[in-house]
């Protein structure tokens, strides 16, 4: 594995207690692979990615586990050490293209900043690289656009700039945190197609964080489904869509509107996500689950292998989570 997260724990200390935003999460991503992390707001998917980047700020903290990258553990590295990896070997693009670029600097300078930070290139060479990157992400007349400020560009264009910036140092891993959520559908497709194309071209691994299963189906190779800070299911993308195991995954898939069906009401998962400071004793999903059993309310199921994939549910195995 190029990047392997093992038993990651990230906690936030808030007034009402401690939130285990990421609880014992393990996954890995290979070179050239797209791994999707799916879950609703608060499931811990963004926190997982920020943990990998070392960008968890107070009151949050990575409290356990390992993040192995090239046989090096990123957990516990100093900010200075992480700065050598961030933006160079692992880079990230964010959900909000409208606000993620600094409004007072030209986009060209913002891309060059990454290049100049991590390479020995001269300013002129960095500029050439930046222009090449803008061209690569499909921005027309890139030389002219170098001098544009973010406010002179549309949301889709800004997200392309973000991608150009993230890819400017040829990262081995790209973390894309809801890269298309803020964009309209046609632009979404273009951006996803772009990420997929670049993955093939550069051979980088992509960690795609999303709540949109449509995006997953189109791009991902493997899928991790998260709920309340834990992984509930992990499988190849084909398996997830044709044969979902966990009731939560099933619910998510059910709630996607389908062209071929004529329905008055969309399916929805009943109830709401529990308060993260007061998670129920047993399975976090028990209260909302249609297959809930007595046992589910008392015990947390373990994440177990089921025919080459993983699921955390008593429907498939009686094994309990040891460390709750």
């Amino acid at each position: 594995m190029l990047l392997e997260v093992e038993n990651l724990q990230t906690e936030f200390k808030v007034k009402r207690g401690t939130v285990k935003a990421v609880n014992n999460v393990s996954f890995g991503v290979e070179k050239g692979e797209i791994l999707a992390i799916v879950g609703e707001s608060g499931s811990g998917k963004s926190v997982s990615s920020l943990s990998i980047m070392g960008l968890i700020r107070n009151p949050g903290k990575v409290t356990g586990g390992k993040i192995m990258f090239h046989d090096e553990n990123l957990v516990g590295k100093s900010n200075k050490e992480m700065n050598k990896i961030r933006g160079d070997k692992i880079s990230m693009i964010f959900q909000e293209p409208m606000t993620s670029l600094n409004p007072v600097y030209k986009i060209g300078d913002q891309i060059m900043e990454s290049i100049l930070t991590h390479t020995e290139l001269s300013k002129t060479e960095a500029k050439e690289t930046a222009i090449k990157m803008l061209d690569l992400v499909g921005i027309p007349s890139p030389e002219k656009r170098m001098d544009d400020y973010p406010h002179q560009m549309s949301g889709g264009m800004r997200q392309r700039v973000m991608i150009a910036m993230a890819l400017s140092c040829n990262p081995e891993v790209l973390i894309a945190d809801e890269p298309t959520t803020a964009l309209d559908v046609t632009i979404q497709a273009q951006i996803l197609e772009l990420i997929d194309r670049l993955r093939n071209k550069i051979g980088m691994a992509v960690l795609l964080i999303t709540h949109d299963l449509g995006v997953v189906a189109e791009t991902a190779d493997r899928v991790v489904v998260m709920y309340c800070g834990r992984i509930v299911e992990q499988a190849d993308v084909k398996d997830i869509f044709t044969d979902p195991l966990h009731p939560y995954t099933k619910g998510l898939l059910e709630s996607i509107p389908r062209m071929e069906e004529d329905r008055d009401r969309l399916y929805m998962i009943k109830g709401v996500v529990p308060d993260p400071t007061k998670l129920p004793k047993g399975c976090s999903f028990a209260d909302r689950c249609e297959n809930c059993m007595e046992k589910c309310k008392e015990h947390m199921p373990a994440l177990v292998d089921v025919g080459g994939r993983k699921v955390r549910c008593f429907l498939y195995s009686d094994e309990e989570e040891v460390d709750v």
Partner: protein
Amino acid sequence: MIKYIIKRLLMLIPVLIGVSIIVFFLLRVCAPDPAPVVLGQHATQASMDEWREANGLNDNVIVQYVNFIKGAVKGDFGQSYYTNNSVLNEIGSRFPATIEIAIFAIIIATIFGIAIGVIAAVKKNSIIDNASMVLSLVGVSIPIFWLGILFIILFVKVLGWLPASGRIDAMLRPDGGTGFYLIDTLVQGNFEAFKNALWHIILPGVTLALYTLAIISRMTRSSMLDALNQDYIRTARSKGIGEGKVVIKHGLRNALMPIVTVIGLQFGSLLGGAVLTETVFAWPGIGSYTVECITKSDFPVIQAVVLIIATIFVLMNLIVDIIYAFLDPRIKYGKRES
């Protein structure tokens, strides 16, 4: 941009007309009759009448105002009732002292205010943050004249480090030049005098700076906290650039607008003369002089000073607005968004 600046400068005219009307008529309505003040208590009625006639105070008040404006347009604000010197000369001889101390104070306030504000924002809720914000609250609320006196007691009486009053020792006063002693002494190569002038300006300058420093540091802190929470800061961090660069280049640069506004307005009011500080430290600037003239009903001087201060304020505002355009590329004056 140039069009915009010209437009703003033209807007100065109605402002000055308004200010001149207010100050002119307020003086005639509220201020004590200058004749007995100028001529003394024992002046005869006849001599007072004669003095009033000579100074045009017996004319219809509208006529007086028109005459004043006629002169002002030509740059003639009349003579001081007491010295019979031209008002502009009187003011001109005191303005360098005020400008010098205002610049000194604004430099100190800006450097330390921004530094404290940035550190407080970066170390939010730490001891440093709380301590500096309590101190700045004290700085905003403490009466300057009282603080000035405390400083004199400590640094002059107890420690004996600094002189208590004046701009420079009389023997060392530079002849001619710009009237800015720190510059004049340097230009003349008289380092002893320069040091002497510097020693003199420290106490009043720092006293004057403290209030502004406190305001700037509070504004910097809140503006920085806002900037550091923005998404582009996270982007900057994700690029792997150093934390210092993240804070200064990406944070402070975006936080500057309100800070520049405060600095501009504060500098404007410092240039208008700091009455209390100038009085406590016997600093021969425009502030203490104006107050003296108000108590003596020296109408021509008061009118001129108020107009000059109003002009300075308007110009400072204009300068701040121009700086905006350089700080934020989204601001374009005089051009319609295409």
